[in-house]
């Protein structure tokens, strides 16, 4: 008569699974609640919006935060918004309701559009001193910069091309980024435009058969290059330095182009709607300090905007010519250049 009492209401494994699921859901909710933790608002908070790689533990973020918090009596909080191209969209999305006090990581290809939003206030800092071109903008303050360049593997490509024309004439395969979704892609577009003006469309037509593919962002392109999918990748003159200094690998170099190299200048700016204007000013001034600038080369792998010594082996050569459109020129050239690019590569 006791057989029936051993018959549970339902299969035992099911009951266990349901308990486990309920437990898991409970734990998840607690974990989510904890990690979304409430802010403690005794000390003033300075919110800095930047790109992902800046705040990662191998980027400048942690050291910058520690150094600035040591003197500011504040809580410096970084918010990451994907890559550099996403920052401006994010700020426009947030509008004046934004909690952001300072944005760090806009690029010169986008500053005209950024200025037009009216979201930014003058920074009031002296111009940065260590740029290869004169750059003095009342709203946007450079903190680092670099030259775009095609990076290659010295063993695989002993004689890299020396200009866009040379590249187009060669069988060298390159991988580039889409100007519609990434700042390096846009930089390349402006590079060709700045160097070749009305002939830019022809240059792109010549390059079409060299381009293996176009990636959404820098990291996919660089990954493809490292996997051997292309002989060269659009990156920065400082990319080989990363491999040299961080990995002890001297196999990569960048190819000097006769036209000169387009500059990417990364800038920060203060939001007009900030509720911490004094802290924001202090932070912008801090970005120009030797302490901040010395962090840049080996964490952000770009040139510092201030006069600090470069690490040993960081630089092997510099381009002879630097190209940079003004913000207004870049804004004016962008859509036409994009149309040329699309038309030339549309086959």
């Amino acid at each position, binding site marked *: 008569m006791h057989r029936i009492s051993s018959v549970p209401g*339902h*299969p035992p*494994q*099911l009951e266990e*699974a*349901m308990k486990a*699921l309920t437990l*898991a*859901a409970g*734990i*998840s*909710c607690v*974990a*989510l609640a904890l*990690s*979304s*933790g409430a*802010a403690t608002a005794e000390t003033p908070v300075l919110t800095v919006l930047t790109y*992902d*790689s800046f705040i*990662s*533990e*191998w980027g400048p*973020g942690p050291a910058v935060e520690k150094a600035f918090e040591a003197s500011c009596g504040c809580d410096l*909080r*970084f*918010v*990451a*918004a*994907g890559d550099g*191209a*996403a920052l*401006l*969209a994010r700020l426009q*999305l947030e509008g004046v*309701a934004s*909690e952001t006090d300072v944005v760090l990581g806009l690029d010169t290809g986008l500053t005209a559009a950024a200025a037009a939003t009216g979201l930014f206030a003058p920074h009031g800092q002296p111009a940065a001193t260590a740029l290869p071109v004169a750059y003095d903008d009342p709203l946007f303050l450079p903190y680092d910069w670099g030259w775009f360049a095609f990076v290659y593997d010295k063993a695989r490509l002993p004689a890299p091309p020396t200009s866009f024309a040379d590249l187009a004439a060669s069988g060298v*395969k390159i991988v580039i980024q*889409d100007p*519609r*979704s990434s700042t390096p892609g846009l930089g390349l577009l402006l590079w060709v435009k700045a160097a070749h003006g009305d002939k830019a469309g022809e240059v792109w037509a010549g390059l079409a058969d060299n*381009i*293996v*593919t*176009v*990636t*959404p962002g*820098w*990291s*996919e392109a*660089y*990954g493809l290059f490292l*996997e*051997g*999918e292309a002989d060269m990748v659009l990156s920065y003159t400082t990319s080989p330095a990363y*491999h040299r200094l*961080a990995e002890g690998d001297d196999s990569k170099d960048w190819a000097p182009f006769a036209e000169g190299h387009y500059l990417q200048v990364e800038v920060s700016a203060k939001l007009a709607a900030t509720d911490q204007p004094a802290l924001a000013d202090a932070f912008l001034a801090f970005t120009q300090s030797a302490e901040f600038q010395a962090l840049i080369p080996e964490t952000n*792998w770009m040139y510092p905007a201030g006069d600090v010594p470069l690490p040993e082996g960081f630089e092997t050569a510099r381009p002879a010519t630097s190209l940079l459109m003004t913000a207004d020129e870049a804004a004016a050239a962008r859509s036409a250049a994009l149309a040329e690019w699309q038309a030339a590569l*549309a*086959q």
Partner: protein
Amino acid sequence: MASSAGAVGAAALLLVAVPIGAVALRAGGLSLSPADGAALRFTLLQAALSASVSVALAVPVARALARRRFAGRRALITLMGAPFLLPVIVAVMGLLALFGRSGVVNAVLTALGLPALSIYGLQGVVLAHVFLNLPLATRMILQGWQAIPAERFRLGAALGFSPREVARHLELPMLREVLPGALATVFALCLTSFAVALILGGGPWATTLELAIYQAVRFDFDLGHAAGLALVQALVGGSAALAAWAAARAAGFGAGLDRTLPMAGPGGWHRGADAAALTVAAVFLLAPMAAVLLRGLPGLAEMPGAVWPALVRSVAVALASVVVTMAAALVLAQAVARGGPRWLDLAAALPLATSGLVLGTGLFLLVQPFAPPMRLALPVTVAVNAALSLPFAYRLILPDARALEADYGRLAASLSLTGAARLRLVTLPRLRRPLGFAAGLAAALSMGDLGVIALFAGEAEATLPLVIQRLQGAYRTEAAAGASVLLVAAALALFAAFDRWGRHAEA
């Protein structure tokens, strides 16, 4: 039940419609540009091709899995599901190791003095989409095969059916029911493709709607354009779902007694064909996985400490998403199985073709007035992941829910089996197989998803895919490859755990 299904359906519809509306409202309207026509054409072309090829290849593979028994069959089924769980960029890297310019295939071709193959172009986009979606299509169709009661095959055998007659009387009616749903699902998935189409498409001619949306949001900050494109994408996906629902014809096999009959598949060349289908599929699906693994193993040692809390966060988000997804999918599937309103079908399908970026942007706009978006990063991610997984879960559960209702709905009703008791005693045990599989998929999809978290997350909310992206963005290719292996392993483990639980029902 009916009212809760209505609420869930309305919630799913609103989760799609309100963010698009919020984006449009912010922009003051919707707009499209002339170039969008080309993007739409390419999007439709690649999605249609990818869906057809995926499903066509999945049929022989699913049949071989259904009618053959061999050592390691279950492990093979689980492993073959893995590509679907891969983060897109990891999958692309795995494929390139095989089919890329310096991949294994081209190395062999070159050694043989043959011309090299290029993966870049439409063929590459389709190849990658087939790689990513063949597992899902195979499992959807395999479920269909397993839903044919063993008694029907026994009857076929008793009547001396040849394989051709088995196909005609049993398998084709089943396929007619299952294939439209599988086609529509893969089609809608490929509609929202962005990175695959761009990386392997080889140039701007391979512009998809999702890339156009990306451009509209990120570069032009033309939110009206983004909302317009998102609406087009959702409508195309919704139409595909509607077409599938119209085309699917219930096979009506009726109930079996859960008997497990030794089902000997046909011999002769059929055996060879099944073996070939399984071998080709296994190599195609597993070799790139192996490449991912080999590439990532050395990187495991290089992973920064940040991956561990990120892993915990990802698992927590995944489990929470599973609970939400499964509850919603079960309520909807049961309501539709009981003859509920057909708009629920559409509500469950619509999130499939919704732009993750527009969804995230809309939610961002909606959330911002009330709280800093960063603080809600993980709950919003759970909600979006659950919405994006809902269509799969729903599709997978629906056929069995229908069969359950047809076969045992009256018995349950006549015994007053309702509410929690019915869920516990009838629904969960009878639907265990699709529930386990769908829960596994939902968990793994959530694990690999990058879409929304990237828009919301600050320092402290990063999930594992976001950490991988950050590593890749900072030259840490090795560490990123290592973390990808960790992500794939965790996603596969979650998937396998749920799926195993589900397949416990299968003898």
